[in-house]
């Protein structure tokens, strides 16, 4: 059985000031298997964030429904951890307190909280920064804390919306390896939104390509690169072949999207 099933989920935003309603997402159907790492790739404005927010329960579909482990999603909850594109650490909490936010909400005992926090601080390589405030961290460190914060809650599925979009290339590469390493060890179901083709291939076991607005699924491509993946895989012929194929798929959409504006 699939972990997450998205059944005919569509989203139409009402027109702004008497304008025409905007179809952000055409009815979309997608099933995600347990422990799969899927990336959703598409041009800007194609409804990737909209889809992810609906899965998170932060937005409601105008048609269709989302099921997690067979149960309908109606509101946000700790079973769907989310990492946002913008920095959303709580500025008044330290790194450790941020990571413990969900645990505190679940009334986990303090010693147990401390153990879990220490474990994830270690996993995202933030030892020594536990008592820093978000303001004192670089963008990459903030996103690593955000990933730790979501994972510490032990969610059924981890949702990431272009979490590394604002980082420089080198940092982004390191963050991808870090996230992939965690996934390879922990085996979690992950849905990762990006518009970066290399990122989509490197991380995924399956890449979902979306069309330009109004978004719909255009291609569903399996990535068979072996695990554990090392960054050198990015220069392999298999990787290049996938990249060429996806570049072609995306180009058509980007041209369409550009023509529309």
């Amino acid at each position, binding site marked *: 059985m699939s972990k997450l099933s998205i059944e005919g989920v569509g989203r139409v935003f009402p027109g702004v000031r008497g304008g025409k309603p905007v179809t952000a997402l055409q009815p979309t159907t997608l099933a995600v298997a347990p422990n799969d790492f899927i990336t959703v790739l598409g041009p800007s404005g194609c409804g990737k964030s909209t889809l992810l927010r609906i899965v998170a329960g932060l937005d409601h579909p105008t048609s269709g429904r989302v099921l997690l482990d067979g149960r309908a999603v109606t509101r*946000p909850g700790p079973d769907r951890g989310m990492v946002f594109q913008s920095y959303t650490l709580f500025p*008044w909490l330290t790194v450790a307190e941020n990571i413990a936010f969900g645990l505190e909400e679940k009334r986990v005992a303090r010693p147990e909280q401390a153990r879990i926090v220490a474990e994830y601080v270690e996993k995202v390589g933030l030892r020594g920064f536990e008592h820093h405030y978000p303001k004192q961290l670089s963008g990459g460190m903030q996103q690593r804390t955000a990933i730790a914060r979501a994972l510490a809650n032990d969610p059924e599925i981890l949702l990431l919306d272009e979490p590394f979009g604002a980082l420089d290339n080198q940092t982004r590469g390191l963050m991808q390896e870090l996230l992939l390493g965690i996934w390879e060890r922990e085996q979690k179901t992950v849905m990762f939104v990006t518009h970066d083709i290399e990122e989509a291939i490197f991380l995924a076991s399956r890449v979902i390509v979306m069309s330009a607005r109004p978004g719909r699924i255009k291609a569903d491509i399996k990535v068979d690169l072996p695990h554990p993946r090392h960054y050198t895989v990015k220069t392999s012929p298999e990787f290049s072949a996938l990249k060429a194929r996806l570049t072609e798929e995306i180009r058509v959409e980007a041209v369409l999207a550009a023509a529309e504006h």
Partner: protein
Amino acid sequence: MRPLEPVSPWLRIVLGIAFFVVFVAAWSFATFGGFVSKTFLADPLTMVNDGWTLIAKFGFMTDIGMTIWRVVGGFVLAALVAVPLGILMGAYKPVEAFFEPFVSFARYLPASAFIPLLILWAGIGELQKLLVIFIGSVFQIVLMVAVAVGSTRRDLVEAAYTLGARDAGIVRRVMMPANAPEIAEILRLVLGWAWTYVIVAELIGSSSGIGHMIVDSQSLLATGQIIFGIIVIGLIGLVSDFLFKAVNRTLFPWKFA
């Protein structure tokens, strides 16, 4: 000098003091130079002298104490009512819809205009003074806190939801801590306004306090005493401002780190 370029802390202090020096110099020049009649404006030395007499002979310290207690008492009462109400209004839109129109209206009612009415209701005792401060502060705090809490970053609220927070948790663990420094800043600002209300309240129907002393001095044409009273108010304001800022810095290290 370039726009937004910071000054060194040292230069900041020197410049800040320099203004006071220029101010006192101009005042001395006008009074000692005989350009202004002594009846209308006392010179700085007379002012200091009068001030000393006030403290030593007329128990002015008690007046200062009375005034401070009135401001703080009325202000604390207002804050106790206004901060929780403001938070509720900022967080829950129906609560806001219920209170906002009235509070917006009441905010423009001048507290000093209530003094005659309050004297009728509460006499000229302490209760009346506290009520003037209360009325002058409470509506301002409610509205400003509601606006601050209502503009809590949406993405932080959403992040908390995805971490398992429920509605009460959002208010308690996100909206309140996120806006605590701003609420403290609002209180600092309104406390400054409360000082102007207390003096007005003491000018009318009072037998103690800095404002009372100022009215008494007027009938004696003792401008030195009046100026001394005004300067004392300014100094107390400066000190309370400084304390507020220092407390905020220690309470909210994340904001100033």
